[in-house]
């Protein structure tokens, strides 16, 4: 026995609604009993199969749902049988408790199936139950979702599939998602042909209509109309008759609608009017409007037209179609003028016009349209039109309508028109004797004229007289308070300063304590004079203020003074540019000195003064003002003017004002120390060099010490230190020199420059008896020499000279040693001493050659001199030696052999002499010993030079 078969058969979609009243209860009880029986059997089966058969579970869910519905009907009956009073009091949930229990059980069963039997083929059935259950509990979203699942999980074209589609289509229809509903209706109606076919097709027709497929909609309506005649289906013919004309109308096929009605007989316009009335009742206002519009196309009596327009007017009101509403209103008003409207119609028209005027007025004034001026303007205009109709409908109160129209225009910022209408209502209200509106109109007029955007012409036309009148009437009123100001503004706009001043004075008289406004008015006047460059008038007002004639805030008084000052500044600038430097200087000095001047003004003035003095060549004042301006300037300002300042400093130096020049450079260096600057290096160099030139070693040291912090290039700092060392050497500042050398000696690039100063220092130390210190310095300098020579670094000549001088000392000792060896006889002793002499000569030679390799011009010449003297001296001494007590022949022979022996020595001395000459001449050596080699006729005695150090020093500082 196939369970499936049973279930497919048993899967009934019952219609419970049709269980009628008589015997219903009895039948329902019987049904519940049967369901219980079935449920019991299914439960038993389910247990036997251990819930392994989803179909059984599904059937169980169906039965639970079925039972729940029957019970709910029972409960509903019971609930409805209560009196309304009692019904309100009782808990509804309590009455439906039992059915809810079974609904819930059905739900749980379905969810259990879905959980346990994920691959159940008929899941669609389960979802269908869940969907209907959800629908029962008004869980529409859930219901919709489950219907979708039911469709997805059921056989296409099957009963569940079709029913679910129909249910979902209905949901979409109710949600007004017609394009989604259409395919579902189509698919399901292909399969389902029950009594509700007509109703569902009717809905489908409406869906088509909503998606603008009106022809299909009409065709379906016709089908429904035809089927409705069959008793098998629900009769929908009345609804079709009602809606089909509307469809035709919407389709623009009114002829068909007319034909439809003609077929049925009757007045077409009236019918269409009925259709529209129905549509309005249905809330289908757009359709109603369209129908009415269509109706207008027929020849209608004026009475009917009035009716149509009244309906249209109401619809336009509903849709906010103000333009059309206004048109209908105007038309109806024209009928009113013809006397065609009855009392009620006139009242209705008045009401509508009033309502619309008020509405539009409100809209025109609303914030919403502030950013949409065109719309606002249009709305104001429409409102004005309504007020116009209203004025005509009630002429005795016309001034009021005009006043409102003016107010609307004012709110819409249409001030010109507002002013015009205010003036009109002002006049009309005056005539009508409405003091309130007169006052209000005048106020409105004032407000309009005082607003931005009002045209000049309007102002010219209404403003002055309106203001004057108001002031006259109430000179010290609140309103007058504003009017004075507006009048003042009006005069100022017209550049009528005298009248403006008069207004100011009147204001001062009536509102003496309102300093602020007075000040503002005064400011406006001052501004006027400023523009006119009327310094005199400004001075005049400043004096009046100083006299207390006008009481203004301190701040403004100061500002005014500043204004005066600025004007003066401008004058000075002009003087400067015209070449009147003296006057310009006076002006700047005044600005500088003026207590009102701001720091910036003073700064600029000081700088300009410095510049002017520089141009005038006054170094002293240039320095003074440059320094002054620099004190006021921040480093950022200095960067802007640094080239000018450098020029000034150079000029001051050029004018031999070293102290000032150094100071200025020092200040400039300090100012730009931490900033990027093109001239920073120059300031650094200038400052320390000028300070050294001025003998201000401390200041120079200070500048050089700042170098690193101010990010001066290392090379420049090194040069600065070299200058300091040289200066200290020259000035014999041995202590400071020693310290500085200690500080900088690690810099290998500076060592070559230290050799000479260190040699000087060593000498100085020797002179003070500090031999060890001297020796140490000497050792250091020789080491610097060797190191740099091996590195082939350029060593300054004076350094080389210093090294050569040191080496020369040992040469001199060797030469002295040579001459100190005395020749003696007997022969053996002679030979020994001669040997010693030659050996010593070798030493002299090698020492001399060592000095020659130093490259010092002074050293070279001296070394050659010692060589020549040693060789010559030795040759002469050997040739001149005559042994005592020896025979002449011996002596002759001895002498002859000695001549032979000494010839090469003397020749060598000649060679050295030649070499020395060629070196002196070739290398252009200037040395004290040059004459030894260059003297053509040698002097009988060697020339000796004695001089004291510094004796020929030039005072590089010039005249002091």
């Amino acid at each position, binding site marked *: *026995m196939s*369970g499936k078969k*049973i279930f497919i*058969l*048993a899967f*009934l979609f*019952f*219609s419970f609604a*049709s*269980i*009628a009243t*008589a*015997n*219903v209860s*009895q*039948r329902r009880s*019987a*049904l519940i009993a*049967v*369901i219980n*029986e*079935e449920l019991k*059997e*299914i439960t*038993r*089966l389910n247990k*036997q*199969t251990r819930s392994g058969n989803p179909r059984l579970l599904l059937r169980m869910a169906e039965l639970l749902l079925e039972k729940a519905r029957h019970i709910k009907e029972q409960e509903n009956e019971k609930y409805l049988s209560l009196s309304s009073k009692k019904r309100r009091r009782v808990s509804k949930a309590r009455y439906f408790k039992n059915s809810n229990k079974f609904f819930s059980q059905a739900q749980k069963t379905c969810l259990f199936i879905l959980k346990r039997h994920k691959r159940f083929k008929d899941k669609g059935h389960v979802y269908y139950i869940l969907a209907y259950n959800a629908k029962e509990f008004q869980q529409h979203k859930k219901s919709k979702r489950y219907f979708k699942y039911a469709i997805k999980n059921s056989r296409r074209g099957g009963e569940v599939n079709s029913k679910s589609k129909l249910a979902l289509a209905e949901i979409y229809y109710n949600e007004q998602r017609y394009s989604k509903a259409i395919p579902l209706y189509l698919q399901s109606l292909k399969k389902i042909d029950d009594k509700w076919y007509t109703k569902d097709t009717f809905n489908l027709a409406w869906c088509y209509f909503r998606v603008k497929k009106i022809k299909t909609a009409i065709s379906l309506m016709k089908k429904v109309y035809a089927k409705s005649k069959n008793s098998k289906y629900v009769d929908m013919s009345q609804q079709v008759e009602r809606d089909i004309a509307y469809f035709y109308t919407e389709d623009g096929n009114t002829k068909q609608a007319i034909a439809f009605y003609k077929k049925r007989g009757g007045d077409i316009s009236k019918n269409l009017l009925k259709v529209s009335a129905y549509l309005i009742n249905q809330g289908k206002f757009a359709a109603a409007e369209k129908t009415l519009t269509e109706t207008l196309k027929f020849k209608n009596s004026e009475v009917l037209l009035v009716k149509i327009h009244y309906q249209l007017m109401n619809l336009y009101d509903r849709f906010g179609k103000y333009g059309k509403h206004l048109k209908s209103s105007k038309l109806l008003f024209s009928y009113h003028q013809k006397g065609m409207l009855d009392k009620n119609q006139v009242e209705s028209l008045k009401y509508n016009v009033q309502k619309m005027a008020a509405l539009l007025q409100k809209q025109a004034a609303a914030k919403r349209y502030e950013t949409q001026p065109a719309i606002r303007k249009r709305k104001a205009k429409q409102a004005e039109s309504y007020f116009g109709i209203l004025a005509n409908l009630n002429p005795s109160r016309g001034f009021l309508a005009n006043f409102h129209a003016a107010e609307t225009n004012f709110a819409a910022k249409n001030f010109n028109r507002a002013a015009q209408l205010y003036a009109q209502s002002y006049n009309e209200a005056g005539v009508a004797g409405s003091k309130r509106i007169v006052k209000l109109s005048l106020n409105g007029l004032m407000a309009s004229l005082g607003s931005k955007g009002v045209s000049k012409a309007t102002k010219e036309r209404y403003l002055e007289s309106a203001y004057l009148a108001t002031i006259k009437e109430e000179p010290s009123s609140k309103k007058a308070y504003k009017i004075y100001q507006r009048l003042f503004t009006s005069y100022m706009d017209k550049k009528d300063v005298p009248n403006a001043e008069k207004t100011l004075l009147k204001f001062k008289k009536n509102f003496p304590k309102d300093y602020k406004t007075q000040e503002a008015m005064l400011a406006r006047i001052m501004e006027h004079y400023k523009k006119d460059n009327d310094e005199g008038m400004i001075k005049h007002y400043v004096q009046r203020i100083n006299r207390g004639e006008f009481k203004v805030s301190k701040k403004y008084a100061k500002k005014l003074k500043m204004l005066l000052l600025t004007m003066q500044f401008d004058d000075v600038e002009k003087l400067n540019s015209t070449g009147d430097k003296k006057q310009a200087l006076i002006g700047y000095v005044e600005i500088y000195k003026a207590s009102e001047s701001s720091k910036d003004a003073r700064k600029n003035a000081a700088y300009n003064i410095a510049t002017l003095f520089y141009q005038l060549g006054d170094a002293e004042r240039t320095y003074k003002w440059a320094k002054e301006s620099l004190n006021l300037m921040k480093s950022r300002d200095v960067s802007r003017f640094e080239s000018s300042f450098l020029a000034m400093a150079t000029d001051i130096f050029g004018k031999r004002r070293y102290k000032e020049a150094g100071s200025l450079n020092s200040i400039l260096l300090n100012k730009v120390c931490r900033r990027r600057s093109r001239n920073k290096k120059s300031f650094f160099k200038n400052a320390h060099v000028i300070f050294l030139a001025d003998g201000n070693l401390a200041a120079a040291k200070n500048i050089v010490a700042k170098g690193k912090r101010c990010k001066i290039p290392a090379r420049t700092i090194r040069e600065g230190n070299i200058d300091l060392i040289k200066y200290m050497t020259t000035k014999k500042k041995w202590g400071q020199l020693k310290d500085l050398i200690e500080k900088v000696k690690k810099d290998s690039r500076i060592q070559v420059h230290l050799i000479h100063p260190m040699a000087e220092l060593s000498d100085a130390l020797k002179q003070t008896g500090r031999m060890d210190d001297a020796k140490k310095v000497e050792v250091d300098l020789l080491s610097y020499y060797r190191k740099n020579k091996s590195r082939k670094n350029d060593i300054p000549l004076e350094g080389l000279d210093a090294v050569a001088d040191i080496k020369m000392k040992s040469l001199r000792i060797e030469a002295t040693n040579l001459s100190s060896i005395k020749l003696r006889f007997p022969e053996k002793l002679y030979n020994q001493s001669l040997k010693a002499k030659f050996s010593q000569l070798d030493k002299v030679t090698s020492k001399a050659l060592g000095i020659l390799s130093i490259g010092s011009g002074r050293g070279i010449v001296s070394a050659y001199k010692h060589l020549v003297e040693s060789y010559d001296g030795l040759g002469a001494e050997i040739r001149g030696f005559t042994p005592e007590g020896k025979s002449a022949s011996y002596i002759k022979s001895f002498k002859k052999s000695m001549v032979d022996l000494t010839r090469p020595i003397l020749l060598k001395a000649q060679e050295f002499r030649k070499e020395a000459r060629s070196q002196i001449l070739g290398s252009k050596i200037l040395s004290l010993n040059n004459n030894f080699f260059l003297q053509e006729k040698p002097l009988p005695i060697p020339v000796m030079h004695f001089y004291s150090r510094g004796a020929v020093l030039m005072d590089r500082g010039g005249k002091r």
Partner: protein
Amino acid sequence: MKIKTVTLILVLLFSLQSKAGVDSAWKSLINSKGSVDSYPSIVENLLKEGLYFTSLPYIKEYLTVHKGKYNKKMDYLIDEVATYVGVKQFEVLPSRFLEKSRSPMIKYILAKKLFRVGKYNKVLNMLNASIPANHPAKPYALLLEGSSFSIQKKYKSAISSFKECIKQSEAGINKHNDKNRKRQLSINRDYCVVGISRTQFADGKYEEANLSYLDLKKGSHIWPEILFEEAWNGFYLRDYNRTLGKLVTYKAPVLNYVFNPEVEILRALTFMELCLWEDTKKVVDVFYKKYQKNHRQVVKFLKKHRKDYKYFYLMAKSYKNGKKPGNNLLKNMVDFATKDPAFLELYDNFHNGRKELEFVRKMKNKSFARILNINLKESLLLHRNLIGAYVRKSLHMMARMVNKTMQDMSYIKLEVIRYKKRQLYQLANNRSRGDIRNLQRTDKQYFWDFNGEFWADELGDYVFSLKSECK
């Protein structure tokens, strides 16, 4: 293999005092020196002394262990042993070992195994010309063949096989004197008789089937169960009163042992076809009342004893000895199982085997006796377990049948309820047709209970005279 080990250990211990066949067997065993090649000779000698169960281990070992040229003598021996001990002992062997033999009996066993797994073409191939016409297995093979043809919708061939089967079975019955063998063959013949009816039924020839069923004599072992098939045939012929008549026969005390819950299904269905809703419902309710509780207990019982074959054997044995279980359903089931010819054959064979024990005990060659005793015990233990397994399987099958029937009954009842509900809804939708009172019936129309007496010659021939209530 255990048997082999025992044989080898004790091979040197023998006694010279024994009968000729046994002596020869012993000699062969000694000479074999552990080889299975001599087993056909040993078996042959053992069979000479009627030691069928005793020889079984040697045959099985030969089939499983022997390699090389197969001794054709063994096929003959297998046939002889299978005819005596039944085919079950061989059925438990894997097919790959059985396939070594060309014995017609083994072929039949293999075909039976294939039939069980639904490979009907292979069954036919296996049987095709493999069993000689005069072979004892031939009638059974023909039943198998006819059934295979019938399942494959080759109805003509099926009927032809069944007819041949009847012929061969009849010939066998006349040829043998053995009671058991005669019973087996007569049952086989009767199955072939109903095989023809069943084939005609399957072919939709209900009238022909109806006549063919009459060929089965009421004295047949299988007649009680086939009566039910006749009832089904009547149902298909829409002869519901005859169907009910056939079914009521089961209420006769002589057929109380027949266990077939489907009888009630058919009865309920027949009432339903006659639109006798309340009768249908009553059948369902009575069925549930009778079986639901008992079935639960039976299921529990079966779960408890799982595969304890010894227990099931002992239960069947004690039942035969008069010890009945308390649960009526279980009693009914055991009763039915123990009256089954297949069971009876197994059971009788087992008792024959026990006679061999006596023989072996009296053997003078104690060494050989010990070996043979071990072999015999092993065969008999297996046979006992086979009986237990058969009983167990039968009980399980019947329990499942009850469960299935209960479900079917529920579905039938649901159909009845559905009908009732439909009536109610129709009333709701179309009140002009009447009201709930239309559903009620007069007492005369109510339940027809058979309370009459049964006469042996009338069994199966009752016909009801109920009128259909269908509208």
